[in-house]
């Protein structure tokens, strides 16, 4: 992209109530239908009456897939209307970044809920057989997005390392039992084989399909990248990224957030063909204006520079965990601060910290709109 400071989304957007309840086959209240209509008007969605008919009707064959398409269309238009340069569909077709992939892949079984924190849990699967590609998990969503936007598209793709880290590794631990007597070594070797089988059998085939269908940019999402910060594990993570993207003619980027950037920075330059690191900073930053020392949240960018990372930054300038709507001037100052620090404005792509799924559409829209306005102010400041 030739434009300085292009703007992008990072992944998920909340699913509207009419999408969630409708998908589950539950009847919708008038208020929920009105919400769909109001946003539809705001986003200039065509044939709204068709959606209203669909929402008012009871459960029927084809209703589910129709609803996925409608909510994807809404999300695409949501990003376009906010003024973003690079878009996707807010992951409206996915239940969640982990479950969506695992459910569509053979070799896994969900064991039930385990603790995350307090009264929160997550549904954790076990790998019980060699992972095998069963059906595509991102292709249809990509094709629909491609048909419904003229903007540049970036496809968010849950990375293999995270899928493995969040899954019990029964099949491979069993396979290695008896072969390696030291439990610690055995666990590591079992993890390694699981990881590279998953990449070979499942991840790469899907990437290949996406590229054949015209995908030009895939964002590998790896929230678990620095969960195990030892050198040995970080090398495994880097190797998994490199193996994932090897030989494909497509742009790749990495998204990682709420992590240890000191650790990631040390290994970032070993990532091959990683054109962009999309990172979270706004969450760590103050909300005061200024381009100098006040930008405490952006210190980590220096670490990546010191370790000679040469790609671009997907610079998180909007905090996705608060309802505070960053004024355009704050966004501008964050961008200008980093532009000054790294000395090359062309390496900055303006982003939210992460997907906006935990915010309402109202808040998300205002945040993204201001992000776009802030990028514009930053451009003007450098002209």
């Amino acid at each position, binding site marked *: 992209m030739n434009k300085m400071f292009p703007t992008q989304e990072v992944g998920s957007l909340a699913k509207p109530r009419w999408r969630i309840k409708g998908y589950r086959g539950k009847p919708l209240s008038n208020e929920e239908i009105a919400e769909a209509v109001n946003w539809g008007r705001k986003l200039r969605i065509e044939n709204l009456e068709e959606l209203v008919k669909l929402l008012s009707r009871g459960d029927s064959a084809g209703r589910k897939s129709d609803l996925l398409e409608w909510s994807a269309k809404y999300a695409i238009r949501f990003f376009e209307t906010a003024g973003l340069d690079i878009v996707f569909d807010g992951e409206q077709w996915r239940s969640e970044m982990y479950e969506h992939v695992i459910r569509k892949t053979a070799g896994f079984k969900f*064991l*039930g*809920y*385990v*603790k*995350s*924190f*307090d*009264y929160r*849990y*997550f549904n*954790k699967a*076990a790998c019980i057989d060699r992972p095998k590609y069963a059906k595509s998990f991102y292709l249809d969503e990509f094709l629909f997005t491609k048909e419904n936007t003229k903007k540049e598209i970036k496809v968010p793709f849950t990375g293999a390392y995270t899928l493995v*880290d*969040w899954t*019990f*590794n*029964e099949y491979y*631990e*069993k396979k290695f*039992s*008896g072969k390696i*007597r*030291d*439990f*610690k070594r055995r*666990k590591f070797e079992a993890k390694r084989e699981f990881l590279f089988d998953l990449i070979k059998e499942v991840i790469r085939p899907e990437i290949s399909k996406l590229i054949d269908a015209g995908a030009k940019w895939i964002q590998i999402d790896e929230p*678990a990248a620095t*969960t*195990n*910060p*030892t050198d040995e594990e970080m090398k495994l993570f880097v190797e998994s990224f490199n193996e994932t993207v090897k030989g494909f003619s497509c742009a790749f980027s990495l998204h990682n957030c709420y992590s240890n950037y000191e*650790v990631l920075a040390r290994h970032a330059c070993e990532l091959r063909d990683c054109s962009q690191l999309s990172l979270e900073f706004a969450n760590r930053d103050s909300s005061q204006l200024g381009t100098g020392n006040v930008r405490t949240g952006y210190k980590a960018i220096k670490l990546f520079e010191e370790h000679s990372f040469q790609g671009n930054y997907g610079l998180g300038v909007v905090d996705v965990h608060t309802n505070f709507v960053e004024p355009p001037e704050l966004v501008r100052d964050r961008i200008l601060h980093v532009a000054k620090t790294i000395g090359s404005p062309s390496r900055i792509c303006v982003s939210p910290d992460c997907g906006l799924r935990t915010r309402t559409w109202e808040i998300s829209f205002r945040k993204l709109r201001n992000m776009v306005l802030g990028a514009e102010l930053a451009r003007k400041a450098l002209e």
Partner: protein
Amino acid sequence: MIGCYVTGVLPRSSKLIEQTRAYERGKISEKELEETFEKATESAIKAQISAGLSYVTDGMLKWQDLFRPFTENLNGIAVGSLTRWFNNNTFYRKPIITDYVKREKDVVNNMMQLEKLPKNLPWKAILPAPYTFVSLSENQYYKDEAEFMIEFAEIINKEIKSLAATGFSYIQLSDPALLYEPLTPKFKKDKLTLVNDVLETAVKGTTTKTCLQTFFGDFSNILPEALDFPVDHLGIDLYKTDFEKLKEYNFEKGVALGLIDSRSSLVEKQDELVAAAEQIIKSIYRSRIEEVFICPNCDLDFLPWERAEEKMKVLSSVTKRLREEFS
């Protein structure tokens, strides 16, 4: 003597999980949630008894994390933000030390449902070790971290005495932070003298059996110093510890061998566990065998309840076989 027990929080059953979620959404009252917790505690105790464990805990089902009863009930500590629990996809709330830390009432005893614990089996309680609690807190008050660690050890000492008075005969201090140094190329041993002093304070004048349970790291890193720690038993995570290095040392102290992997859903093969334990016991006890406990390497609540229950049964069977082997 070879015994077995669990080493931490047990998982909540799917029924209990469902109820805690319903409570969060305002669908059930606190009283209803409390009743479900009580029933689940009964089941957690029953499962340990029927598996045949040598000591029984109350399951710690209400513990939101290893620190929370202390974070919430000691003066001078605020409940902080969610923080990753070592290299797991789980999170704890960081204790923020804002003032002089003071204990005005029993902490762990007040979490217990004593009437549900069996009369005919010994009881075990689990507390955070001072080193781990202090290292994972954010200290905004004490000038010197060592001073705070000793202060906290005094609190743990009072807790142990109070638990002993209630009837607990075994106290485990969980100390994962002691071994977790993923970013240090060579393990820093300089902290071990302090840890020794801290443990001295924590156990002075107590009469219960004590165990320092380490996990998430290689126990051989704190050898031979740990052999002098003033506790009865040393807990070892065998899924993180280099077997060969461990076997280089001669133990004259009891151990708790973390032979069951709480972070894997795969139910272990008994033969393999027996063989591994035999080999370790024979290597580390060159003159005479001290007290040995077989246990999960860490809290079983990384697993769904059913798997944890299966693993407790394996734990007990393996212990029986080892008992026969070494009798």
